[in-house]
């Protein structure tokens, strides 16, 4: 819901922007379903402590590798079964939502804000700061996301905060380039010149005049960045470089599950399905957002 509120703030020229946005957005049925799935994942994450039936790190040693409740030998107390240490998988997944969403949200924020500032600087001062910024971004882009993240984790060491930093640095170039490109397109328009002539300073021009008009592609990119941050967090966790056990992180859960692939397939299946459904719903939502926010594509469709 927060994104909608932002959008309403950002595109104030329509008679009722929120309504118009919702009309275009709800035109895409998949996106609406995805939005509700995503909201329920957020709900699980926020209220994990109340929803989860068990403590996520509590080990029920008598019930190790219990199958899901619908399978033979399953117990209704452990709805999705238990893992190799007898921890309730459902509770771990619910608490995992909190961790994954938190990391993803923070890493998007940590790359979005510096990315916008750097992109605006590069657009407004193309000769000096711009060249340096874009060269540095080129170097960062030469390393594929997960490798750059691995590189940073090598220096900082694994852990929750370091995962956020690694992912944020990895996605920084995309926001910088996007903001720069959008700002370059706006910078020579009449309203910017008018505002400059009226005596607006560089900071005012950058953040109050130009930036609001560059937000649509940045918001769409941030949505997609959110889903890839969840995937990357899980990938780092799977490699043992991300959030460390026993913290219930989705990828970390999978890295331990590998050895039980024959005996206990549910230990492998459940975290993966959760990641897939979450990421898929965010991507579908991103598609809907793009259709609703980008008038050019709207006309084409």
């Amino acid at each position, binding site marked *: 819901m927060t994104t909608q509120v932002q959008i309403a703030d950002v595109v104030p020229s329509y008679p009722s922007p929120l309504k118009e946005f919702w009309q275009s957005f709800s035109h895409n049925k998949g996106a609406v379903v995805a939005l509700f799935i995503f909201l329920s994942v957020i709900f699980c994450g926020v209220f994990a402590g109340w929803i989860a039936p068990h403590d996520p790190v509590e080990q029920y040693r008598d019930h190790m590798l219990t199958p899901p409740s619908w399978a033979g030998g399953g117990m209704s107390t452990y709805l999705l079964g238990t893992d190799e240490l007898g921890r309730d998988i459902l509770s771990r997944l619910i608490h995992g939502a909190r961790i994954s969403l938190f990391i993803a949200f923070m890493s998007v924020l940590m790359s979005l804000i510096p990315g916008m500032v750097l992109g605006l600087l590069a657009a407004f001062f193309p000769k000096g700061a711009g060249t340096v910024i874009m060269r540095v971004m080129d*170097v960062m882009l*030469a*390393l*594929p996301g997960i490798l750059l993240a691995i*590189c940073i984790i090598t220096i900082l060491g694994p852990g929750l905060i370091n995962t956020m930093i690694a992912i944020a640095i990895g996605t920084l170039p995309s926001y910088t380039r996007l903001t720069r490109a959008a700002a370059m397109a706006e910078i020579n328009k009449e309203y910017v010149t008018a505002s400059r002539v009226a005596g607006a300073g560089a900071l005012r021009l950058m953040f109050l005049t130009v930036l609001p008009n560059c937000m649509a592609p940045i918001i769409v990119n941030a949505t997609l960045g959110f889903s890839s941050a969840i995937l990357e967090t*899980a990938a780092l966790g*799977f490699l043992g470089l991300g959030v460390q056990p026993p913290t219930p992180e989705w990828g970390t859960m999978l890295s331990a599950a590998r050895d039980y692939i024959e005996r206990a*397939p549910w230990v492998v299946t459940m975290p993966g399905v959760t*990641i897939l459904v979450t990421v898929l719903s965010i*991507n579908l939502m991103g598609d809907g957002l793009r259709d609703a926010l980008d008038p050019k594509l709207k006309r084409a469709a």
Partner: protein
Amino acid sequence: MFSFILRKLATVIPTFIGITLVAFALIRMIPGDPIEVMVGERKLDPVMHAAAMQRLGLDQPLHIQYFRYVKDLAQGDLGISLVTREPVTKEFLTLFPATVELAICALLFAVLVGLPAGMIAGLKRGSVFDHGVMGVSMTGFSMPIFWWGLILIMYFSVTLGWTPVSGRIDIEFDIAQRTGFLLIDSWLSGEEGAFKSAAMHLILPTIVLGTIPLAVIARMTRSSMLEVLREDYIRTARAKGLAPTRVVVVHALRNALIPVITVIGLQVGSLLGGAVLTETIYSWPGIGKWLVDSISRRDYPVVQAGILVSATIFIVVNLFVDILYGVVNPRIRSAK
């Protein structure tokens, strides 16, 4: 054309210098110095420490160290592995073909399936096939590939017993390394069943590594096809009475492929990243697994080399794509 290539080359040089700086800085930014890492937990006598620092040239000023690093690099020297004490370059050369083989197969899989699927989806817009392709590619795009790998192992290797779980070839085959590509080497060896074994080992990793590029290529081909079909020259071609297949294959496809080529080039980056995960799942002895293993063993020269090499591959491939782009589209060549 020649000046176009030169211009492209010139833009890559600062990036490459930046990459060497990052790789150089990496090993100096880790906690502790390389000597401490090398001896590990044991206590080290300060005199010996200083002597070792001097022997490795680590007591020199940073800029001199950097120039020495670049000089060694130019001679193909990537340093010595702390764990095996072997030159990193040598280890790299034995592992690199495995990754290239896997990456080529994955990319072929992605292009051979993704291009036609995207094309047909674009032509039959709104059909069941179109929705199917879009749904599948959206799912593929959202797939945590390390999990996808585990699921395929669970179904095809454990339940059905069709494919092997890990490695490049069954251990009973001892294939002499000629090209480093096991598919070719096992074919050349003439040993019965060797080629089949190598191919079976390759299937699942290929699918896993190819999934995301496949999804991206299918989506890109579809949208690019839709865009091109709206162009005036397509209407002209139709109006002058050309056969529909000719309009699609000669007029539309050729133009629709231009953005797809760029996307394929960019996918090489995701292949390198994906190789890290895919190789870890399938114990595939390539540079991705080597890199991950080296991080857990704190073998920093290897990590440093791995990062440098991956980035270089990525830069070179994209340079190549840029040039190819100019070949396909003359307008880009003459633009500034």
